[in-house]
């Protein structure tokens, strides 16, 4: 993760540099230039990311071999796949259903589908729980709070 932070830090620094040298900001006194804090924050992130990366790499042996081993162990674990399925369900609901399928239907499908996949109970229980939840959410948000549900 240290390398990830380092990359983000470099981007933040670049953004700071752009602001620092921007012709549009040439009339702004340098101490008020928005790039000054971005450069400082980006620089700190680069430094800390580098330290974390070095700590991680030092003493861990061959980082490539260790990384490969960790990845293969993670892929073989059941927990990893369960996590992926949960994230996939959420992603489908957020990016596939939201705004494309009417809210009540999409939420019912998401709730019932996820409960089925993770064996929450008998099918009729799942249908009742999903239906009641959707009805409550629709009534509270759509009717009482008057939020235009997608």
């Amino acid at each position, binding site marked *: 993760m240290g390398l990830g932070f380092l990359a983000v830090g470099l981007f933040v620094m670049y953004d700071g540099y752009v602001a620092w040298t921007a012709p549009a900001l040439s009339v702004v006194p340098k101490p008020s230039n928005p790039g000054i804090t971005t450069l400082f924050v980006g620089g700190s*992130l680069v430094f*800390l990311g580098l330290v974390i990366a070095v700590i991680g790499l030092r003493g861990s042996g061959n980082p490539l071999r260790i990384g490969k081993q960790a990845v293969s162990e993670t892929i073989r674990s059941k927990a990893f796949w*369960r996590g992926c399925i949960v994230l996939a369900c959420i992603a489908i*609901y*957020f990016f596939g259903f939201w705004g494309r399928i009417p809210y009540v239907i999409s939420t019912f499908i998401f*709730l019932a589908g*996820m409960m089925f996949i993770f064996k929450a109970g008998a099918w009729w229980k799942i249908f009742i729980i999903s239906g009641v939840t959707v009805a409550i959410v629709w009534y509270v948000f759509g009717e009482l709070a*008057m939020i235009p549900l997608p």
Partner: protein
Amino acid sequence: MGFEQIMIEVLKTLSFEFILLIAAGVLIGLVIGALPGLTTTMGIALLTGITFKFSGHSAIALLLGLYVGGVSGGSLSAILIGIPGTPANASSVQDGFPLAMAGKGAQAITISRAASVMGTVFGIVCLAFFTPILTELALKFTSAEFCLIGLFGVLISGSLSGADLAMKGWIGGVFGLAIGMVGSDELTAWQRMTFGSPEVFGGIPFIPIMIGFFGIPQVVESMIDEKEVLVAVLDKTKVKLKDIMKYWWVAIRSGLIGVGIGIIPGVGEDVASWTSYGVAKRVSKHPEEYGKGSIEGLVAAETADNSCIGGAIIPLLSLGIPGSPPAAVLLGAFLIHGVRPGPMLSFEFPAFTYQAVAWLLIATLFMRFMVMWLARPMQKVLQIKNAILMPIVTVLCAIGAFSLDIRYIDIVLVFLAGLLGILFRRGKYPAAPLVLGIVLGPLVDTNFRRALQASNGDFSIFYRRPVSLILLIATVVLILGQLGVFSAIREKLKRKKEKAVS
């Protein structure tokens, strides 16, 4: 504003509607707090989205009720099933669950409730007393001091809440500062890190980020670990007041620890409760009983985490700097509802601190009664499978974030923040500094440049005044201490001494 006018303002917000909302907040907080996986921070973030249409003060009263209920509710699951409802109650498991397994569940809940009430009231008294003093002091602060307070807050939060390395806490805080700087710059209107997306020109919205950062990782982790829970049976023992009052000294000491830790920016209830538990064990006459059902241990843990509530709100109201992660989300909620915490609050809403004190006291009163009523139904609720609960939480996360501005980008941000939250948890990076960094990003940034502008680029403005000098020294000492400079010097001196002796 005189005392009489303040009282009139306070009484205005103690109508039936407010009391009902506070009761609802406490009830929701107790249930959210008791359900493992749903934290107080997440509850406040979720409810902020849901209550955004409420009038400003009433929504805040409800959220404060939730804060009180959430921290206390976590002890129910800690005692009944041995799983803390919130991180703040992790230390209550040590003695609460063994007591419940020994057939003293009701006794443990009664004692924990009494300790929660004592702790919360102690914190509220400190809030009422110290907030005006700190506000007076803060009114004399300049931009340099505000910048240094913000920076010190992020760093100390990183140092104290870092799981294995302080560096991880700092990196979380600095990353949060970077996120907090996204959007239009307050002084020059320059767009920073927006990728040209007009949706984030106004900055990254805080509440959707908090909902995603705390909610989605919890949903994923709870669905991964589908465990059967063992629920303790509740006895019918009655506990007398004198049995509780035996621990008055433990309660006062823990209350002080809780308030003290609460005032430190971003540290929060979990650190307060573990610190208090550790201190109580160290000074106890019976340390061997700790972890096996010590009432003293339970009182120490529960008093501290609850007194931390008042402590965490003190810097929030007086400086605009939250003392804990739930207080950080509260800050976001305050802003949404038109209340800008900080020194100017005493001019914009002079009675607000006392209104908050009154709401918190009422919330404590409701918590006092509701905990016992809820204990038995919660035995059933705690057996609800995560496979049922977590999809519902996901739906609430989405609709809670969407309700704020009715924008699809907030849903995308919930998901992205969720992925970030998962990475943080897996890498053992603490959440509190990141939250504080996001909240304090604009404050640090704007005040840093304002200070430099006022001094024509002269950096001595950061150490010319006594307060800024103290803050600067504290920040440097904190960094050097965490980097091990002092321990290295100590070690060197020790070796030198040994060499001289030999």
